[in-house]
């Protein structure tokens, strides 16, 4: 079904069968040129955090080390996100090309796909595709190899430093930062870690040039983004759309006509109520109070039949289980938030206790060790503040 307002771009999913040419083109460019292209394209990490990709590659290239790595984060664990899987199924060699370009720039001899445990069934086809890609690399005399590392199922291992720990055979717990992965990543060596989609976008930039990419989107949110649309929508699925759309337009195109809220960015993202659809733009800049919202691509639409208490309860159960448990705010905070809303709902604690929980969520946001604990407040505060009556009654 064609959308009314938003244009489907399908740059990424265009199956172009010209990997060999693009790879060759990239390999003959100077490192500086590639980095400059990426930086001026405005490409930012598509996993959700939005770190400028060109800068990440440059920082890692500037580190002095005879051992460096490029890792493709395919742990795709955020509830409501399923776009990376589709990219790996349909256009894997775009991802490999991005990895090879990065390897050339930073000086890596080895790259890894950290593949979500549940995606193990993709492994056979991916290995086949990697083998074919290796032949292209050999033709170009470029000494680089890609391997697959299978995750074991913990959400936290999608966090980059926990991912390294997991790959090293240790407990998947986030590290202290600094040092950052660009300085000390996998095996404590300078490492670029990029989301699947980010790497696929580099292919589009290499192929179509900076301008095509840069002309899409708004301000600091350039290019297109692959969205995983789910929930109360007649057309769930994966869509590549331009950055900078308002939620209003998104809901008009994708909603069932009765959307009361959209959860942008999965369990760790923000919940936007209907009255804020018009003012909310999907992009990197700003916070909930501002005008735009970041997202790793998950867009969950809830219509008026849904209980937002149940939605929040579900997210909190998820966090209580998926926190690694090492830092106090996240381990204990998530338990307190979950028990707290249950007790308020049952009338065992006064509704005023929600204020204490909001305060706790803010403490978690500013004190937790990694993105998991820090972002619990996103969904918690935005749901509790916007749907307070549903929490109490």
């Amino acid at each position, binding site marked *: 079904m064609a959308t009314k307002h938003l244009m489907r771009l399908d740059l990424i999913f265009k199956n172009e069968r010209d990997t060999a040419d693009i790879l060759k083109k990239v390999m003959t460019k100077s490192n500086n040129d590639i980095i400059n292209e990426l930086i001026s394209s405005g490409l930012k990490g598509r996993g959700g955090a939005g770190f400028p990709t060109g800068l990440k590659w440059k920082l890692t290239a500037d580190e002095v080390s005879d051992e460096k790595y490029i890792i493709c984060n395919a742990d795709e664990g955020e509830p409501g996100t399923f776009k990376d899987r589709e990219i790996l199924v349909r256009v894997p060699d775009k991802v490999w090309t991005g990895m090879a370009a990065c390897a050339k720039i930073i000086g890596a001899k080895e790259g890894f796909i950290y593949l979500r445990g549940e995606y193990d069934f993709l492994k056979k086809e991916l290995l086949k595709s990697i083998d074919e890609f290796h032949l292209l690399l050999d033709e170009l005399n470029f000494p680089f190899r890609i391997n697959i590392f299978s995750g074991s199922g*913990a959400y*936290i291992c999608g966090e980059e430093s926990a991912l390294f720990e997991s790959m090293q055979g240790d*407990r998947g*717990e986030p590290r*202290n930062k*600094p040092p950052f992965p660009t300085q000390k990543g996998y095996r404590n060596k300078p490492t670029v870690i990029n989301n699947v989609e980010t790497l696929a976008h580099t292919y589009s930039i290499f192929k179509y040039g900076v301008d095509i990419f840069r002309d899409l989107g708004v301000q600091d949110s350039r290019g297109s983004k692959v969205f995983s649309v789910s929930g109360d929508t007649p057309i769930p699925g994966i869509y590549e759309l331009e950055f900078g759309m308002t939620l209003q337009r998104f809901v008009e195109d994708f909603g069932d006509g009765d959307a009361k809220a959209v959860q942008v960015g999965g369990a760790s993202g923000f919940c936007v109520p209907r009255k804020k659809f018009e003012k909310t733009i999907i992009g990197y800049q700003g916070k909930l109070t501002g005008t735009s919202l970041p997202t790793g691509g998950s867009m969950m639409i809830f219509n008026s039949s849904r209980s937002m208490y149940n939605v929040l309860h579900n997210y909190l159960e998820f*966090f*209580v*289980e*998926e*926190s*690694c*448990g*090492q*830092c*106090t*705010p996240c*381990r*204990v*905070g*998530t*338990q*307190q938030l979950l*028990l*707290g809303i249950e*007790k308020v709902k049952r009338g065992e604690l006064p509704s005023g206790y929600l204020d*204490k929980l909001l*305060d*706790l969520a803010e*403490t978690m*946001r*500013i*004190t*937790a*060790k990694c993105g998991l604990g*820090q972002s619990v407040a996103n969904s918690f505060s935005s749901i509790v503040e916007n749907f307070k009556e549903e929490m109490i009654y």
Partner: protein
Amino acid sequence: MTTKVNCKIDNISVSVEQGTTILEAAKKINIKVPTLCYHEDLCVAGNCRVCIVEQVGTDRLLPSCATPVAEGMEIITNSLRVRNARKRIIELLISEHNADCTKCFKNTKCELQSLASEYIFNDEGFINLVPYKNYKEVHLSPSISKDDSKCIRCQRCVRTCSELQDISALTVAYKGANMKISTFFEKPMYEVVCTNCGQCVNRCPTGALVERSYIDQVWDAIYDSKKHVVVQTAPAVRIALGESFGLPPGAIVTGQMVAALKRLGFDSVLDTDFSADLTIMEEGAELLNRLRMSLKENDTTVRFPMATSCSPGWVKFMEHAYPEYLDNLSSAKSPQQMFGALAKTYYARKRNIDPKNIVSVSVMPCTAKKYEANRPEMHASGYKDVDYVVTTRELAMMIKQAGIDFLALPEDDYDSLMGESSGAGVIFGATGGVMEAALRTVYELVTGREVPFEHLNILPVRGMESVKEASIVINNPLPEWDFLDGVELKTCVAHGLSNAKMIMEKVKRGEVNYHFIEVMACPGGCIGGGGQPIPTNYVIRKKRTDAIYSEDEGKPIRKSHENPEIKMVYDDFLKEPLGHKSHKLLHTHYTPRNRY
């Protein structure tokens, strides 16, 4: 040259070396940032988040223990945001913690309690999570008591066990709300590969890991008029006990300790230092015997290096990790067990007391000694040789329970028969001490001359270096030892089990050819033992060590073989080192154990 970085902490400028953390920089200018998971001996975890501070202009707070100072940083350690967040975090920790403080061994000595005491929690607080947790009952081994309901998941114990000891008996299990500190396959503490060293106990901020206490049993024995209760005190207790009464580390309180023990009601207050001297006689004789068999009789089955066996943590480590090397361990029992075996034989006979009425108690800087005393083979006297072992901390608690004003006590002397000791016995308490004591005696037995070191101080084996090597060439020995002429006696000293492992791997690979190695399971030796007053760190251990050596210097007798009570026990009872009685009472065997 190191680069300096400048920052401002609470508006005070400070310049530090690159890599210095905010916490260390703050300390430098006497600003105290509270910590919990941080420990000077361990790598930084940054997981409790108590030490968070605010960087001006930054939204999120920073863990000061894990964040290096960057040029131009402006840090505020006590802003409103920091204060509120820190208070919330302490509240969270308390909500997950079984706060039955009045029943806790660590009451008034708990770091969480003391943090909480700095804030006033006047509102309701968070929901108490303990009832939701389904904590299992307290895990007990003969040495250690582990109560998960009091654990705050700081992972100090986990880091201690892996970094300092390379054992990893304790590790993190599960995730999220179920995350906890557990053992391999969640086996009970007495079944896992644990050396009972108690270093985790020394570093646990709460009452989650404490020694298994035998205070009540000791009181029962004291109050039982039919029992004759003897107590022995290990060398390292006298230089650390004072810390429990507010004295600085390194304060020597031998006289007060003896006086306190007498007031507690022990019938006889004796000294493990005496049996340390005895250990030197037996272990020294064993070393010379091995050398004789190897060098003179060309017996190729004799194992070198011979290793000391006084540290029960090290012994159990060997049983688990290197069972094929158990013959390398000296068969001589530890001083504690030699004392125990003699208390119910030699002492009983001399004092004319029925050994079944003797209760033998030892005060040790150690938790592994509790396990050692409970070994089934430690019944050489026909009874349990050492009935109860209490730690330095437990003794302090008993003294407080008895209402004794410890600091005001007049000094007293040990009772006789097994109370006299040489300086060599005293230095057993520090890493390198057993080696030094052994060399003082062995060298003199073989050559008839004192060891060739100024004031008998064998400095190469002293100090906090993780591994120390020393050798002595034997020249012009007495005729009986002529086969040792020109032999270079090679020794090695290590402390902390990760260092021990390093040495044993070298031995295994045949890279070293030591004759004699001394290993203490704990950092610094017994002075840093798992039963010593908390806290511990490098500076404290150094001060305790200095105190041990000054105690040695002050002793009129510095060599084990010159201790008159040692001469007497051989003349009247044992006859000779490695003799029939010694073999029965003072030597033991070891048990190969699993690695998992």
